[in-house]
């Protein structure tokens, strides 16, 4: 019997990490097909169609590749706590999810530049710095209003994607002391049951 959900996963990819983290936090069981995008096409899993790349979540007839779509799809599965896409705060969650997914794309592109060179070159940080600042200002205000999370009373799928963006900017030279509100929020994320790390995201700090 095959699992209800299959994730084509490339470990070092930041979008794949976002999906793994979401699946883990939301307590989903799934089957992993490991993919190495550095290998030639012939050595990748047969289930991956031409043009498709990880992350790819296959469930029934659905094939999803974007974290912004995968997260709500997981959150709406039976047995997943409603709070991850709290109906009472659904639009605010989806708004920050979209913001986070765009920031994640920006961050992924910047990482590709930073890690794809033979010399330590920092990519242009303008768009990412602007996104982080908006997040920092927002979470400063949320804290003053007595809230712990981006868009709802509990952790949501927006927090998951935004966390990945923030956590991996360490690799791009963003110092943690410039984002005190995000640092406090990220520490809270690490304390959630099911939290997991990837290379570049330490267990703590």
């Amino acid at each position: 019997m095959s699992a209800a959900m299959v994730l084509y996963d490339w470990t070092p990819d930041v979008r794949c990490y976002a999906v793994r983290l979401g699946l883990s936090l939301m307590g989903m069981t799934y089957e992993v097909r490991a993919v190495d995008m550095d290998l030639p096409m012939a050595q990748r899993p047969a289930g991956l169609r031409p043009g498709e790349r990880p992350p790819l979540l296959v469930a029934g007839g659905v094939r999803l590749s974007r974290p912004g779509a995968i997260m709500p799809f997981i959150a709406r599965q039976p047995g997943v706590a409603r709070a991850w896409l709290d109906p009472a705060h659904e639009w605010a969650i989806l708004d920050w999810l979209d913001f986070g997914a765009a920031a994640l794309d920006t961050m992924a592109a910047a990482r590709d530049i930073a890690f794809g060179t033979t010399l330590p070159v920092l990519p242009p940080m303008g768009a990412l710095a602007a996104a982080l600042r908006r997040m920092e200002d927002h979470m400063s205000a949320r804290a003053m209003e007595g809230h712990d999370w981006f868009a709802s009373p509990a952790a949501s799928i927006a927090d998951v994607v935004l966390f990945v963006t923030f956590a991996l900017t360490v690799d791009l030279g963003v110092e943690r002391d410039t984002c005190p509100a995000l640092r406090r929020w990220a520490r809270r994320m690490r304390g959630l049951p099911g939290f997991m790390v990837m290379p570049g995201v330490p267990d703590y700090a």
Partner: protein
Amino acid sequence: MKRWQPVSVLSDIRRGEVAGVRIGGREVVLWREDAPTPTLHAWEDRCPHRGMRLSFGFVRDDALGCLYHGWQFGGGARCRLIPAHPQVRVPASIHVQAYGVREHAGLAWVSMDGAEDFPAEGTGPGNVLPVRTLHVNAPVGVLRHVTGIAPDAGIAWHGPVGLAVHEPAAGQAMLHVVRVAAAQDVSPLALSRWAERLRDAVESGAATAAVMNELAAGERA
């Protein structure tokens, strides 16, 4: 010159928490004990064992543990436990560089050059609450000038609002905002938004007088 620098609002370093800050390009770890009277510490942000940043570590009761190998450092900055060698009585020479640290006016103040006296003690208004620390991409001198902090002063008071700055690295500044607790009409949220406007004006090179005037006029919303 021996001096004390404001490096963080106290609300960013609560009981049992650890946070790295930079002061003039040097990395410092701030941490507060998880104990009934939780003392605040400021040390060099480097484990003497393998050089790991201690700000990635964790607070256990009244000690700071390194994330790498769990070496534990107690209040005196001395190593007191090496988990891989639990029987070893750790020599006193294994310690972290500790800096002077004080809590005053809602802020953590650090002296990295062994200043003994703390001149700000007992000055300024009492019962001050932290609001927020913001990163500003501008030289610290510009921000000191704009906020009216005198060269020998650590903090500038504008009515019930206190502003302080320090330099994490050359060309950058951290702006610390505090407020007098008794001033009920000063909303922390409005003050935070005001500080964002000041930051944006300073960074973009726009006129800052109008923003500072808002503070004088009490128009912080």
